[in-house]
């Protein structure tokens, strides 16, 4: 593990935990164990909570976990690839509608539609991505926004197929999953797997290429990378997981409706990512927790939850742009630098 003189010991052992703000600190093998320990403990604790928390909270957590996946998948585009998409709700709603309409029109079982959801998400992401990614930056955002609204209008107007503004209600979720505890454990399991896969994407050569493209698109082009293609791949992966999140949402809501496709719904995972920290992997998930719990708690005490939410978001955007985890991460780095052996 000792490289040429001047190279930090332990550098060659592991891929860097590269965050969006470039604070690439590598971890040697020795540090890997504590790094794995925390997530494992976290998962065990969350599973245990299934037997400790009330039904209401478990139901809320189902929604939160779906949103956590939604937000993390969106952040693959936002934080990693630097692509601001106001259209991820297209896939979220698509996932939800896949489960709902699959049952409604063709009596497909949940297990089938649940698996179909991410596949459809990926498939639909291809044409949308092909078109939208031709536009840069701002126009990309607006293009995705248009797709979101288009999807919303289609869902609302095609009454025969989608039941329009009423949405689809029914027993498409198997009875076993309608119990809060089992539903929660199922959603938790899917969340863990999804986040692991998304984490893997982040920490692969592809993930690094995405970040490099984000930092300097033209340079990567000059270095031989087909930027358009790689952005498309990211878009497809994000679409698949957003759709999966939508299907997870159905376990909680047991319904699907057009608002899930709306551009303002697309804005939610972006906010969650900003709150928790776009530059960190778990930031969006943390943001989802804060956003949803915040919303649910606020709604109970205060009828002006939109006001509070808006004010909080504004404050974060203005004064704390790295988000919660981002800020903590930077603080940690500063402390480590002070106390370390640099």
């Amino acid at each position, binding site marked *: 593990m000792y490289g040429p003189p001047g190279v930090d010991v332990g550098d060659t052992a592991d891929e860097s935990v590269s965050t969006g703000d470039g604070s690439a600190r590598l971890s040697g093998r020795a540090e890997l164990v504590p790094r794995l320990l925390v997530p494992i403990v976290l998962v065990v604790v969350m599973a245990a909570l299934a037997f400790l928390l009330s039904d209401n909270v478990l139901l809320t957590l189902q929604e939160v976990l779906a949103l956590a996946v939604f937000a993390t998948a969106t952040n693959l585009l*936002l934080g990693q690839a630097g692509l*601001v998409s106001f259209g991820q709700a297209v896939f979220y709603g698509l996932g939800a509608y896949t489960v709902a309409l699959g049952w409604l029109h063709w009596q497909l079982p949940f297990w089938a539609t649940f698996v179909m959801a991410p596949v459809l998400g990926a498939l639909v992401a291809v044409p949308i991505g092909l*078109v*939208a990614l*031709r*536009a*840069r*930056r*701002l*126009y990309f*955002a*607006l*293009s995705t*926004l*248009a*797709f979101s*609204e*288009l999807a919303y*209008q*289609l869902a*609302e*107007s*095609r009454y025969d197929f989608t039941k329009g503004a009423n949405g689809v209600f029914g027993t498409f979720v198997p009875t076993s999953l309608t119990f809060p505890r089992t539903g929660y454990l199922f959603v938790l399991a899917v969340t863990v797997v999804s986040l692991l896969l998304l984490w893997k994407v982040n920490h692969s050569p592809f993930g690094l290429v995405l970040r490099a493209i984000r930092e300097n698109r033209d340079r990567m082009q000059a270095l031989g990378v087909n930027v358009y293609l790689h952005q498309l791949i990211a878009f497809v992966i994000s679409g698949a997981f957003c759709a999966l999140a939508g299907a997870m949402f159905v376990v909680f809501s047991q319904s699907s409706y057009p608002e899930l496709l709306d*551009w*303002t719904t697309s*804005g939610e995972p*972006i*906010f969650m990512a*900003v709150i928790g920290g776009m530059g960190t992997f778990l930031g969006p998930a943390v943001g989802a927790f804060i956003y949803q719990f915040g919303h649910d708690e606020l709604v109970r005490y205060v009828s*002006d*939850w*939109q*006001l509070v*939410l*808006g*004010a909080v*978001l*504004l404050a974060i*955007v*203005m004064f704390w*742009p790295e988000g919660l985890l981002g800020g903590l991460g930077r603080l940690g780095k500063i402390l480590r630098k002070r106390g370390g052996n640099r």
Partner: protein
Amino acid sequence: MDLASFITHLVGALSTASSLFIVAAGLTLVFGALRLINLAHGSFYMYGAFLATSLVAWSAHTGLWIALVASPLLAAGMGVVVEVGVLRRLYAREHLTQLLATFALLLIFADLALRFWGKGVRSVSPPPIVQGNVHLAGAPVPLYDLVIIGAAVIVGASLWLLLSHTTLGWKIRAVVDDPEVLAASGVNVRMLYTGVFALGALLAGLSGVIIAPQQAVEPGMDAQIIVAAFIVAVIGGLGSITGAAIGALVIGIVETVGASWAPSWASTFIYLLMILVLAVRPWGLLGTPER
């Protein structure tokens, strides 16, 4: 199609185009000078409309006329507060940050509107002078449609005059290229930014009043209108007033034609159109490719 029917459709299309233009003009003006996408533009619009409903409730005869002045002023005031209090601090930051800030403002304003005006749907009727129909070549045409078209022409002409024939207009057009050079030549760029933003807001508020008699005034109209305004502005090319006019015309025609030709799909046409335009010419018809 006979002449009468054609005239009805034409006026309908022009009226839709006019409404869209007035709303989009402010949005594209602000982007042109400040390079800022203001999602809360719809909020100014909504407040203009809601204020009109309150003033009409207070005085059925003069309410709307007062609103014609009060709403734009209210919106302009809101604009000043927003620009000075929030946006000014964010000019150096990324566009996403600015976008999110305006989205947060959208939420805040939406909530405050609920407090002031409640959840219900409101409506106002046009003033008696401009109610009813007029007959053009045998076709009945709502008089108010003509009013809106007239308003759009006035707004468009005024903006054109302002931007091409006044010093202020020249400054507004120059500030986006090189604000530092402009500041060095003695122009108070900060106030210019505030002024332009307030003007954009004013236009939004004005459009709210003018369009109020033609539609339901309700919560959610802020999010709805902002998308339409965007589509118009983007198709025409962000930053270009002429572009906004062209975009509005295109959308107006498409919507009118679409409504009679394939009504159940009509609501999707404008999105398809925007996607199409962005796919072929990503910076809009009259936009500049640098973005």
